[in-house]
């Protein structure tokens, strides 16, 4: 027994009471969270969101961003690069592998050469556990494609110059149309990601961060509250609002989850435009 858990002089008998109290608190908290909040929603306060999930949204995105499908497929082969490194793993035991020139950069005529250069999975200590890496049928083109996929994956963090399709979290949200009880962290992240794709920040002038809020009606259309725009006569501020407002409208119609919600959004151009 760890004395830390049972301070001397304490009666073990009150711990169950503590546990019961905790259970009670948890239950009350859960009830408040699940049922109490909507009643507490004060008008005009920032209240969370629901994301995505209606056909029009999905359809329009698909139409506008067809290339995404391609980018998704190019990411598919990403797992395939494994075959290449795999033989290398088995190298330690067998004969010294020829200092295999990396197959990727070699020009086309070398297509067959790397085949030989690859330390073929020698009869060595076979690694049984791994779902057998594809055998010697090594294809330079596939490797190249898969490396491209890996590179694309590595770049995924950076904003692409071309529009892409919805992310996994976005599509996940679309797959839960009936969830209307509140907004999860991933819902917010999903909306943030979507807006990151649709927002074309104004980096021509000194970047201006923009705060606005949207009220989503029951049809998924929005009314934008951009009073910051009206309070400034600076053309750079106005231009930054135009870009942000255009982005939030591109999401229309909003998912049923968001309907009836007031959603504050902050467009941080100072960060988006840094180093561009």
């Amino acid at each position, binding site marked *: 027994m760890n004395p830390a858990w049972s301070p001397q002089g304490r009666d073990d008998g009150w711990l169950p009471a503590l546990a019961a109290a905790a259970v009670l608190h948890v239950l009350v908290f859960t009830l408040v969270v699940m049922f109490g909040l909507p009643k507490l929603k004060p008008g005009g306060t920032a209240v969370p969101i629901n994301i995505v999930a209606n056909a029009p949204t999905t359809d329009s995105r698909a139409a506008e961003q067809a290339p995404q499908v391609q980018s998704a497929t190019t990411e598919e082969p990403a797992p395939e690069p494994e075959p290449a490194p795999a033989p290398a793993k088995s190298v330690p035991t067998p004969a010294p592998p020829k200092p295999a020139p990396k197959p990727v950069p070699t020009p086309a005529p070398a297509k067959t050469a790397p085949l030989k250069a690859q330390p073929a999975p020698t009869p060595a200590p076979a690694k049984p556990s791994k779902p057998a890496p594809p055998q010697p049928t090594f294809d330079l083109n596939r490797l190249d494609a898969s490396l491209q996929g890996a590179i694309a994956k590595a770049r995924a963090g950076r904003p692409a110059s071309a529009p892409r399709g919805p992310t996994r979290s976005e599509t996940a949200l679309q797959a839960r149309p009936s969830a209307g009880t509140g907004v999860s962290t991933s819902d917010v992240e999903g909306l943030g990601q979507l807006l990151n794709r649709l927002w074309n920040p104004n980096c021509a002038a000194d970047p201006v961060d923009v705060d606005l809020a949207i009220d989503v009606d029951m049809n998924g259309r929005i009314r934008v509250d951009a009073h910051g725009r009206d309070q400034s006569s600076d053309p750079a501020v106005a231009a930054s609002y135009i870009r942000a407002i255009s982005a939030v409208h*591109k999401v229309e119609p909003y998912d049923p989850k968001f309907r009836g919600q007031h959603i504050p959004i902050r467009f941080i151009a100072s960060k988006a435009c840094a180093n561009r």
Partner: protein
Amino acid sequence: MFRTKNLFSVLLAALATLLAAAPIAARADIVVNVDQGVTQPLPIAIPAFGGSSVGGQVSQVVTADLQRSGLFRPLDPNTFVQKRIDVNLQPQFDQWKQISAQALVTGQVTNDGDGRLRVDFRLWDVYAGEQLLGLQFTTTPENWRRLAHKIADAVYEKLTGEKGYFDTRVVFVAESGTKAKRIRRLAIMDQDGANPSYLTDGSYMVFTPRFSSNSQEITFMALRPTGASIYLLNIETGRQEALGHYPGMVFAPRFSPDGRKVAFSVEKAGNSDIYVMDLGSHATSRVTTDPAIDTSPSFSPDGSQMVFNSDRSGSPQIYVMNADGSGAHRISGGGGRYTAPVWSPDGKLIAFTKQEGGQFHIGVMNADGSGERILTSSYLDEGPTWAPNSRVIMFFRDSAGGGPRLWTVDVTGRVTAQAPYPLSASDPAWSPLLN
């Protein structure tokens, strides 16, 4: 005891799970942060303006201006569902969303009864479905290009927050003939290469023309068999005036921001110094006295300082001093040879020519010398001049074989393009925005 502890642990775990799974609806202060975005030229649709036959030409000029800036991507008119739109009707936004147009410019050109041309135009936010701008211009029919540039400026400013630079002109040296018999004529054109014309006849050579702040006057150096002189030329009246005669070579003139003074260099016995002439009184004062070569003065926008080029430290570097010559200090710190510094109109940056590694570069640095950025590199890039919005720089580029050509680069260095003037040209100077 052990069971109790286990129960307690389980409860804590359950509580943690519940908290994690609870909808964040419980938090009323949640804000969606958007901090990346996709920076790309803004897709804009500019269908041919309706009304007069000039309408199509106006929209073409607007399109070309915005496209050349690198900040806009005008969409192919062949993809437009609505080819012509009544400027007084709200567009069918869904049709423009289909081609991913973010902004839409509609317009109409009509001839007024009194023979003037009237252009109404509107700028729309396609996704917000609202009008961002609606203006009307009138002018004489032959002036339609300027009117188109003004529309492009208005669109540019509305969507970027920065002043446009399309309704401007460029004065430059038009070069022709062989190297042995070079003809250098003063020439002027619209910033898009239209309406080029010569201001001198080529009987003498001209160098380094510069605009005054009112865009009506030009100062330049002329080299005649009798020697070098600095001139003022009024481009409206054609009146030309020499700014005195100096014993030695006089060169690199540039107006002060208020147009009342001209700074220039005078070379005597191998020593060049900077002088300033008051154009009202013609009084001249010497502002540098160093035995080194001091040249290429350029005033700060408020006129209180000058940036110039000096080899007092052993190689050509960039220095800043007060307008009276006091407090000179070096601001260039990198390797290489720096020449031709020019203060940007907004005062934030200084453009320069740099020679390093066997190449010439156009670059910019902050006014205090920090943050140097090289924008271009080639066999010979020289003579930067700022667009009035401090966003674009024009310079000339020479290759080993061909003649010099005018080029532009934006301050990010990403958008570089040959200026729309097809002949040999050098020493460009960008005018302020026209009135």
